[in-house]
């Protein structure tokens, strides 16, 4: 009898445990569907439900906040979804909150996402209707992608033509030329050397400028000498005066040249062939006169009256040499 009672107790524990687990399972499932406890309802009107079903989850800022309680067709373009919300979210959801149908994960079930708007508004009340946030659907994305694809095909075709042209062009020959690389390398080496030289030049120039600034060298002295400006100014005045004088002389010279070029001028005389014959004849007469004069002078040297003077002159000349 005692054994029977003990067995009954064990059986009772076994059955109660099973029932407890069963009831707990039902409770946990119902709790997730907001079937227990008081909540509040919200309404949202969509044009397209994208597969949203009754019992689907409602997320507020990514947190499970309720379930889709009912779906009604209002007209051919409007579907009204009634959301059964957990009451603990009531103090946080405002009237300007936006609802959108999203997907749980990449390929998950459809859910209603409610997001807050960063503007002040009154808190939501039971039965309020939320505004819908418009998002780009998969179909629209695919349409845009199709257009992009067509554009890409056009660009691809143009690129193909361009590549073909490049292949046929001389540039391609240059690129295919094995010596191009070595030439480019040599050019680069030259550029490197040039750059080094330029750097050296720049450094020297920098030194020169530095020294010039310090007043070293001729340029430095000129640039740093404060009296130089005054001298330069004076010089420039003098140059200006000289220039004026030169100008005046040039005018006079011009006058002279005009006189020379005149019909009765010297230049006319030079161009006259008869004058040239006269001059040549005169020069011959002069030559003859000169020869005669030389003979007279030689005769004078041998004259006893003047011989002493000439000898004295020769001695003086030798002494100077």
């Amino acid at each position, binding site marked *: 009898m005692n054994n*029977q009672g003990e*067995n*009954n107790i*064990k*059986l009772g524990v*076994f*059955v109660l*445990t*099973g*029932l407890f*687990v*069963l009831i707990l*399972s*039902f409770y*946990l*499932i*119902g*709790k*997730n*569907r907001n079937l227990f406890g008081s909540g509040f309802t919200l309404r949202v009107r969509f044009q397209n439900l994208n597969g949203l079903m009754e*019992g689907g989850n409602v997320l507020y800022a990514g947190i*499970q906040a309720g379930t889709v309680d009912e779906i009604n067709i209002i007209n051919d373009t409007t579907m009204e979804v009634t959301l059964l919300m957990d009451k603990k979210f009531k103090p946080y959801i405002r009237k300007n909150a936006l609802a959108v149908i999203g997907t749980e994960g990449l390929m998950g079930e459809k859910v209603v996402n409610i997001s807050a708007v960063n503007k002040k508004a009154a808190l939501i009340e039971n039965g309020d209707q939320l505004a819908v946030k418009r998002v780009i659907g998969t179909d629209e994305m695919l349409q845009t992608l199709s257009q992009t694809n067509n554009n890409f095909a056009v660009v691809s075709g143009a690129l193909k033509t361009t590549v073909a042209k490049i292949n046929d062009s001389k540039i391609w020959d240059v690129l295919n030329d094995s010596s191009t690389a070595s030439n480019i390398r040599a050019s680069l080496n030259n550029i490197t050397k040039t750059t080094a030289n330029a750097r050296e030049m720049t450094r020297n120039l920098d030194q020169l400028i530095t020294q010039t600034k310090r007043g070293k060298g001729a340029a430095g002295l000129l640039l740093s000498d404060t009296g130089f400006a005054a001298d330069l100014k004076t010089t420039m005045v003098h140059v200006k005066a000289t220039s004026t004088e030169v100008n005046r002389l040039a005018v006079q010279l011009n006058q002279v040249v005009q006189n020379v070029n005149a019909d009765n001028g010297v230049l006319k005389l030079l161009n006259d062939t008869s004058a040239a014959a006269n001059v040549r004849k005169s020069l011959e007469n002069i030559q003859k006169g000169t020869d005669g004069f030389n003979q007279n002078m030689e005769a004078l040297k041998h004259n006893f009256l003047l011989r002493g003077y000439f000898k004295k002159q020769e001695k003086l000349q030798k002494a100077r040499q």
Partner: protein
Amino acid sequence: MATSTKTREFLNETGGIARFTGQLFSVTSKPPYEVREFLSQCYSIGYRSFSLIGLTGFIMGLVLTMQLRPSLVYYGVESKLPMMVGIAIVREIGPVITALIFAGKIGSSIGAELGSMKVTEQIDAMEVSGTNPYKYLVATRVLAATLMLPILTVLSDAIGLFGAYIGVNIKAVTSFRLFFTQIFQNLQYGDLTPAFIKTFLFGFAVGMVGCYKGYNSNKGTRGVGSSANSAVVLSSVIIFIIDLLVVQVTDLLGLN
């Protein structure tokens, strides 16, 4: 000729089981009620099967998780492992595996027990003594099997899910709370209720087939073994047939 005989035997068997089942409803509704024997059978059928069912449930959850994991990792949805294991255990694997284990243990036990009572003429003796053997032996066992299998299934599911939790944590780290939150977030009444209801049918089938085979045992002690064996085989087949029918009905009701 042989086919005709087999068909006749099959129809005879089917008719016998139907009559046997109908007799149960007529007998059970009338007093006196064998409450003490019913509780005793509940203890031996339910409580004493718990350790075996619990162990198989635990292993089932653990192995299922470890087998599913590589495929889910391959597709990059490893995070869905608790959801998949939870739905699989609650909807199908838990009830069916538990029912099959139950059929193996209880179906054979009932078939052998009643078969030995039959061949040793204890059942006839009960009739002579004024006790209704059907009510005392069959009704109590069938009712006990019908009511105990759902409880065993619920507990087996719970243990199986715990095994799955351990299976998940062998290769990764998931908190106990997160694991069960993920499971129950994705479970619906449409998953749990049909699975729970069909376990009553499984239990009833196992009890009824075991009792029928044992109650109609013959050919001496050899028949006892045959009864036990055929009780397990037939009840296992009936479990799958019931499962198939319940899935169809569930689908028609829109619960899938």
